[in-house]
């Protein structure tokens, strides 16, 4: 079975899953049409600077290499032809198996999110970040896909029959990255006289509730707490992990209602991680999820508590590591996909 992952590499997931499945003995290949700024690993990235060169790269890949694959695992609502998804019916006619993995704005109905939930990332998101082909991608996926995955449980309501596929993380690679954490001695320890550092890495400030986080930390500082926000933005993935790794606590997001890739990575680093988890999606997460629950309304108090109790951090950090190893390890996630490729959804 030859497996294709791509053509978008959101959060590095295509590259990670392809590598994990390869190490499990399968013939896989990951492709990224647009490399972006974060430098996530992928087997093949289209980097030709000229438009004609990129077109040629694409045509060569689609016509010569793509037909050799048996399984196509598409990400973020795009296929070999990009957002138009014109190739999907033809792949099915050729007997290929097609899977979609949706991650957020590629499928979330912002209108529903805003009008249904008191707080939502979509209410703050302007201009609307939703994928232009959201409705088409949903239609094509429901009609043609052999399986649909979503990275967070809040997306299940938009795709009947979809399955939660946790965000994969390469723990070995992560262990190597986390060696470069700089001054990582936790605050509050004897001999360590610095403010408590709180990491937050928004890919989009409006969606993650960054302004609310900044305001809450400022209020904590005015109350006399020694706390400092480390805002990690516009950096490569490796740089972002290094900067976040030197912090004591992490905040993922306050508005979406589920935890994202950054929370997974912070838990893998053993950092107690705060995030808003919507009540209705709680039961959909595996038991024992160690995310520190918080909301827009109580974030300042919850963070204040964790800042003033460094004795809680080691246990929370260890729980996070265990949880990530159990749920998000790339081999576990890769096996879930492989079962689905073989036609076993359970």
């Amino acid at each position, binding site marked *: 079975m030859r497996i294709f992952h791509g053509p978008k590499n959101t959060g590095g997931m295509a590259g990670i899953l392809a590598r994990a499945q390869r190490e499990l003995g399968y013939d896989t290949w990951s492709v990224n049409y647009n490399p972006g700024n974060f430098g996530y690993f992928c087997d093949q990235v289209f980097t030709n600077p000229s438009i004609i060169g990129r077109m040629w790269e694409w045509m060569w890949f689609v016509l010569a290499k793509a037909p050799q694959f048996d399984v196509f695992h598409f990400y973020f609502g795009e296929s070999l032809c990009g957002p138009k998804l014109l190739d999907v019916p033809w792949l099915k006619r050729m007997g290929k198996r097609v899977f979609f993995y949706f991650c957020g704005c590629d499928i979330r109905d912002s*209108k529903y999110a*805003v*009008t249904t939930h008191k707080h939502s990332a979509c*209410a703050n998101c302007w*201009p*609307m970040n939703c994928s232009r082909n959201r409705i088409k991608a949903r239609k094509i996926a429901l009609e043609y896909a052999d399986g649909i995955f979503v990275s967070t449980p809040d997306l299940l309501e938009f795709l009947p029959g979809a399955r939660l596929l946790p965000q994969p993380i390469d723990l070995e690679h992560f262990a190597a990255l986390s060696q470069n954490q700089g001054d990582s001695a936790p605050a509050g320890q004897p001999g360590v006289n610095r403010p408590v550092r709180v990491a937050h890495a928004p890919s989009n400030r409006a969606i993650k509730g960054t302004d609310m986080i900044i305001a809450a930390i400022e209020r904590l500082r005015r109350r006399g707490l020694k706390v400092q926000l480390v805002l990690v933005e516009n950096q490569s993935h490796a740089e972002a992990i290094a900067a976040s790794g030197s912090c004591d606590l992490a905040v993922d997001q306050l508005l979406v209602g589920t935890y994202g890739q950054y929370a997974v990575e912070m838990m893998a680093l053993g950092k107690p991680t705060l995030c808003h988890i919507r009540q209705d999606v709680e039961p959909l997460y595996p038991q024992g999820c160690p995310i520190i629950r918080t909301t827009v309304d109580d974030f300042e108090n919850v963070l204040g508590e964790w800042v003033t109790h460094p004795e809680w951090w080691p246990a929370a950090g260890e729980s996070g590591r265990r949880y990530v190893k159990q749920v998000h390890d790339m081999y576990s996630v890769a096996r879930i996909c492989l079962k689905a490729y073989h036609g076993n959804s359970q």
Partner: protein
Amino acid sequence: MRIVMVTDDVVIDRRILQEAETLIDRGNEVILIASGEKGMPQFEWIGRVKVERIRRYILPPRIDSFCAKAMNDVRRFFVRVGQDIGRVIRFFAVRTGRVLVKLILLARGLAWRIVRKNALLPFERVILDRIRWYNPDAIHAHDLPCLKVSVCASRRLHMPLIYDAHELYPEIDTLSRVQKRTLSRMEKRLVRHCDQIITVNPFIAEEMAKRYGVVEPTVIYNAIDRPEGFDPTVAPNRFRESMSIPAGDSILLYQGWMSKTRGLQDLVRAMKMVDDSVHLVMMGYGEARAELEQIVREENLGERVHFKEAVGQDELLYWTASADAGIIPYQPIDLNNYYSSPNKLFEFIQAALPIVANDLPFLRKVVAGEGFGVVAELQSPDQYARAIGEMFDASQGGPGRFRPRLLERAGEYNWANEEKKISTIYSQIGSVEPE
């Protein structure tokens, strides 16, 4: 529910934002598609309202900008030729350039006339595409220029449409007779497709019902609420302090756009005939300001006629309340103005400011009908002077005689009253839970 509002305003009218905020207060999401100009951001927040700006094109954007560029290039070329070659040649060169520019404009006009009258213009197609992308539950069209595309969107996407007529648009004075006839027919044809029609006062509502054979539109005034902490019984002194007006003197306030057609020239001239203890403050900006300043100089009124820049909405009422009376001199230059219900009327009411108003139907109904001030014909400086004199006549009690009534009745003319009507409108189309 998600509501898309459409307007061709560049400076967004206060009414639109108030309606939007009211709907947001009731749990809705409001996206406003407005007009934009060069240099303006395409997306922005105004309060809690999401705003997208679309620039208007007559032709497809590339062709339209090509025409604009061509006109500029032609002008510059012929001016340069004229400058280089001499006065005689310049005379012909500049005129040739003007002729070519006019030909380009004519070609542009013919190009879009070839398209069927009912077809959407390029920028309207952009608006339709954006409405489709936002996938709202209701569309709210502000004023006639947005009605065609809104009706189109409403019919294609099968969603309710609310038409909010801020003006009696086909009667606007600057339109030619042909334009008025065309727009009137267009409005008559399009209002039939609206689920709800709103307008700004009962006179325009009645006129629209009579013209178009529709149920009389719901009236929602351009009222405002007082800002938190504002006390209308405590008059600030901002004008006196900033303009060194003596404490014993009185202040008559005009606030708003200084238009050439609002009778402001006669108002300023009238101050010559008004008691020396009465000062006139003109607060705002506009095309007539330079002319008014000239009149002040010619009539030697610099000590008693003062100009002040416009202030933000958040501090407007504090300045308004710093005067002793306000004046609304709108002239009946067209039927739209004749039936007008200007924003400043409601601002004056909330500031408990006695009002001198021209004798127009709605102003008479409110100002005279409620006892808020003096209503009189304001067509000449003499008439202005008499009305102002009557307002400030100490033997009758001066402006203060109207304040109790203003304080008593202000609650009938605030936004809190009007926003209930918005909720009712939307609950009738199923978009909002009724109050």
